[in-house]
């Protein structure tokens, strides 16, 4: 396919983020990408300019993507080059250096400019701000302010909004006497209510900022040098430096001149298209459904939506506006604000906690049981939870206090920022914090790219949360959300529920059919095994098995070892065997000179070091079915002695364990399932750390546990329910298994699912049947049980040619004549 040219005007937060999102969606396959930026740099994090001013960040630390990043990703960047004209009839843009660039798709991300109020004596004759007067917007502004601040003592910041407060803190850090002038009665009056604003005011005064509220600046004093500021009320204030931070205005001039519809911003529709064809816009320059935005979160959402639209013709993604929430540090004080700051009608419920001495203020505005606004000042412990409830519009807990204060006993998470660089994060692949952080700085800014590049998190996966936390830390909370992490497998762009639906609707019964229909015919080697597992789960015995989609273990029904030999674990139901069976196993071990005979953790015997071509003979001689110790399926059910011999036993654990294992042997699942049954609460079979476990308790009852783990992660299982009979244990075991098979991601262990959904929710679904799916789950697992075939039967009739051959020989040597 001939590549189209995508041109992006603007290389700030919005433009550069769009590029990242387009790349994450393989946009390079489709586009030649060209970007124009006014500033002569790569892309930097404008939000952190105030930290550069404050001296807490070095300018080089706030670059998100240096110039080299554009080169590495094949993006042609014209830095320091201004587009002055767009001609949408000929699809050309004109740059200040004379470049004329045709486009197929054009994106306008011109951002905004500082709004400068009318004041006397503000400009030079050339129409520039006078020496000593600054608007705080760009890296160059920031540099000039730092230089100037070294030579003066006293500065005035005009504007008590977020950026004004940040500028005040920055200058304070540089040792200046700082005065802040604000027209309204309250600081940050757009985001905060009166009470919060008052607490913030105290914090600022305590820091040493001089406040002048309800004052309007009228004129700059001084001729050669800046000498002060005059107010409308006639009063004056001496100073040698003035910073103006009174809001922003969308940059719409370029679009307006091109005949694109504008109002306060460039008008965009829900697909972020403008009023003329092939042109899109995003970020602070736009106006969507009557709203303009000045925060980053909406920009990220717009960038995702637009990238989806640009890279996928079938995309129906629309941008529906953002719920505005932001988390920031205002002059060193933690602050999170979202939605509405005050109640609107009488039925609105307001929950407030105020502790002025500590500078803490928390307010929730609740409407119909859902959060419509919140202010959290001076304490950010609960911010993530509150923000999640706000973003998702979820129902709030009855006890609203749970949202204001951490529950006692909740452990404090280890602060990843404090760890040394050489701390090992990924213990499987030996990846340090320093290596991960430097990969992020090198441009690996989505979780998937980061893991692919460093291999962190690609072993057992238990460090994933820490890797994600490091990504958030190293990007300043601005990681790129790679859509593929939500896909069931990387090569088919669908989540598991979407994928299952598509497979069923279109009756896709083989892995190659899925690639053909759902991935535009493109095979993906990393997706085959996951699809194979899912198709088997969906279609059972009507699945069209393609052996090439299976991992080697599932082609030869044994576990591959480091020397390319295999291990053989025959099934020993419930860990109960006999002298006869043991003798047969011993005979096989001798006959084939098995290098190691090992008792496994699952109460079975492992014959290790068998070559591939010997596998069929070994199975035939054993005469025992496969123990499935090599695959993502039900593995084993560990038991204790139980009532038959143990003097403490209160339930027949061995009999139950054998029943479970006979019924569910070989049931394939997203990851392995290890089970256990204990005959009394002493729990010798360790059933409470199994994927599914049962523990006999006094009174003839059984507690059923789900979601336990004792591997890379350790988790105590949750009690699903307590039942009276073996049959009920079998029923709920199967029901949960089927739910796990249908809902877990590929390679997600049962505890992941249980933690993700919560035991209460699972209890509702699987015990109370609130979704009305229990009968269907029971039916589906029965079908899977009925479809079971012992794979070791393939010893007699191999399924593929040379299935168990170690090495084939050529048939002839030929000489070309």
């Amino acid at each position: 396919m001939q590549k189209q040219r995508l041109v992006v005007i603007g290389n700030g937060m919005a433009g550069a983020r769009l590029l990242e999102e387009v790349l994450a969606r393989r946009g390079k396959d489709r586009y030649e990408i060209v970007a124009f930026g006014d500033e002569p740099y790569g892309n930097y994090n404008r939000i952190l300019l105030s930290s550069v001013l404050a001296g807490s960040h070095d300018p080089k630390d706030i670059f998100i993507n240096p110039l080299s990043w554009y080169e590495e990703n094949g993006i042609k960047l014209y830095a320091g080059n201004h587009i002055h004209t767009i001609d949408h009839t000929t699809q050309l843009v004109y740059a200040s250096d004379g470049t004329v660039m045709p486009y197929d798709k054009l994106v306008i991300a011109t951002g905004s400019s500082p709004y400068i109020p009318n004041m006397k004596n503000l400009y030079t004759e050339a129409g520039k701000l006078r020496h000593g007067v600054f608007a705080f917007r760009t890296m160059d502004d920031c540099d000039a302010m730092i230089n100037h601040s070294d030579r003066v003592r006293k500065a005035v910041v005009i504007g008590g909004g977020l950026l004004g407060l940040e500028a005040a803190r920055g200058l304070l850090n540089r040792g200046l006497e700082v005065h802040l002038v604000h027209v309204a009665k309250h600081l940050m009056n757009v985001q905060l209510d009166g009470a919060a604003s008052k607490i913030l005011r105290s914090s600022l005064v305590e820091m040493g900022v001089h406040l002048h509220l309800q004052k309007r600046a009228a004129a700059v004093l001084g001729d050669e040098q800046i000498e002060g500021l005059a107010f409308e009320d006639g009063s004056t204030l001496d100073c040698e430096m003035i910073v103006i931070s009174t809001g922003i205005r969308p940059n719409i001039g370029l679009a307006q001149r091109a005949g694109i519809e504008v109002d306060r911003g460039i008008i965009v529709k829900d697909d972020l298209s403008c009023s003329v064809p092939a042109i899109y816009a995003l970020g602070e320059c736009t106006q969507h459904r009557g709203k303009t935005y000045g925060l980053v979160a909406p920009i990220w959402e717009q960038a995702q939506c637009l990238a989806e639209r640009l890279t996928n013709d079938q995309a129906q993604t629309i941008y529906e506006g953002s719920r505005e929430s932001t988390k920031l540090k205002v002059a060193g004080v933690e602050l999170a604000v979202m939605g509405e700051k005050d109640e609107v009608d009488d039925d609105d419920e307001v929950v407030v906690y105020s502790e002025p001495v500590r500078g803490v203020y928390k307010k929730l505005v609740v409407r119909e049981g859902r959060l419509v606004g919140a202010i959290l000042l001076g304490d950010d412990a609960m911010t993530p939870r509150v923000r999640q409830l706000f973003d998702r519009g979820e129902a709030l807990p009855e006890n609203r206090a749970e949202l204001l204060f951490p529950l006692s006993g909740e452990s404090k998470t280890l602060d990843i920022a404090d760890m040394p660089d050489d701390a090992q994060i990924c213990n499987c692949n030996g990846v340090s914090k320093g290596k991960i952080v430097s990969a992020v700085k090198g441009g690996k800014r989505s979780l998937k790219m980061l893991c692919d590049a460093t291999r962190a998190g690609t072993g057992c996966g238990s460090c994933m949360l820490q890797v994600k936390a490091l990504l958030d830390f190293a990007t300043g909370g601005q990681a790129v959300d790679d859509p593929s992490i939500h896909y069931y497998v990387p090569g088919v762009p669908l989540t598991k529920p979407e994928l299952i639906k598509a497979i069923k609707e279109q009756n896709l019964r083989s892995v190659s059919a899925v690639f053909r229909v759902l991935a535009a015919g493109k095979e993906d080697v990393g997706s085959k095994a996951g699809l194979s597992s899912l198709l088997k789960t969906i279609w059972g015995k009507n699945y069209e098995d393609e052996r090439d989609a299976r991992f080697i273990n599932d082609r030869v029904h044994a576990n591959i070892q480091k020397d390319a030999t295999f291990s053989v674990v025959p099934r020993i139901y419930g860990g109960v065997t006999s002298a006869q069976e043991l003798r047969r196993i011993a005979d096989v071990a001798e006959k084939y000179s098995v290098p190691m005979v090992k008792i496994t953790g699952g109460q079975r015997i492992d014959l290790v070091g068998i070559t591939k071509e010997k596998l069929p003979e070994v199975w035939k001689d054993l005469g025992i079915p496969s123990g499935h110790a090599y695959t993502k399926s039900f593995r084993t059910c560990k038991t204790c002695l139980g009532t038959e011999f143990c003097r403490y036993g209160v339930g027949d654990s061995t009999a139950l364990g054998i029943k479970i294992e006979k019924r569910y042997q070989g049931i394939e699942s997203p990851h392995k399932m290890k089970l256990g049954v204990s005959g009394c609460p002493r729990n010798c079979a360790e059933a409470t750390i199994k994927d599914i476990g049962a523990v006999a308790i006094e009174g003839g009852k059984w507690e059923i546990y789900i979601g336990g783990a004792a591997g890379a992660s350790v988790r105590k299982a949750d009690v699903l329910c307590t039942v009276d009979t073996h049959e009920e244990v079998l029923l709920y075991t199967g029901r949960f298994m089927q739910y796990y098979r249908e809902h877990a991601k590929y390679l997600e262990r049962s505890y992941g699912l249980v933690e993700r959904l919560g035991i209460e929710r699972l209890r509702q679904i699987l015990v109370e049947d609130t979704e009305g799916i229990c009968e269907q789950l029971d039916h589906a697992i029965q079908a899977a049980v009925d479809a079971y075939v012992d794979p070791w039967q393939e010893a007699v009739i191999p399924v593929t040619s040379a299935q168990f051959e170690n090495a084939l020989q050529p048939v002839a040597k030929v000489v070309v004549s």
Partner: protein
Amino acid sequence: MSIMMTPGRVLYNLGPITRLPLGEGRSFLIGDTSVAIYRMRNNEVFATQASCTHRSGPLADGIVGDGKVVCPLHAFKFNLADGEPVGNTCAALKTYPVSISPTGDILLDLAE
């Protein structure tokens, strides 16, 4: 890589392409040389050294697709056409010219 059919060249006939199941690889031992042959789902064939350059994993046992093989031991990926590692820093695999004869046999060229 296809084979240059220059006169005098020594080739190995590995038998009909159906000796390999669709979409899978198999190891061949030719004298002292182990070679992994892969048959893609579109019937394209590739040949590389049989063991991976990381820990000598048996590459013919790997999953193949889209011109790549994933080693069964540690999931490192390699390009079959040129042997180059994909997303890892292992050394490249040695590759061999291989093609299908008009009669459907796999022909392998081991010469340097």
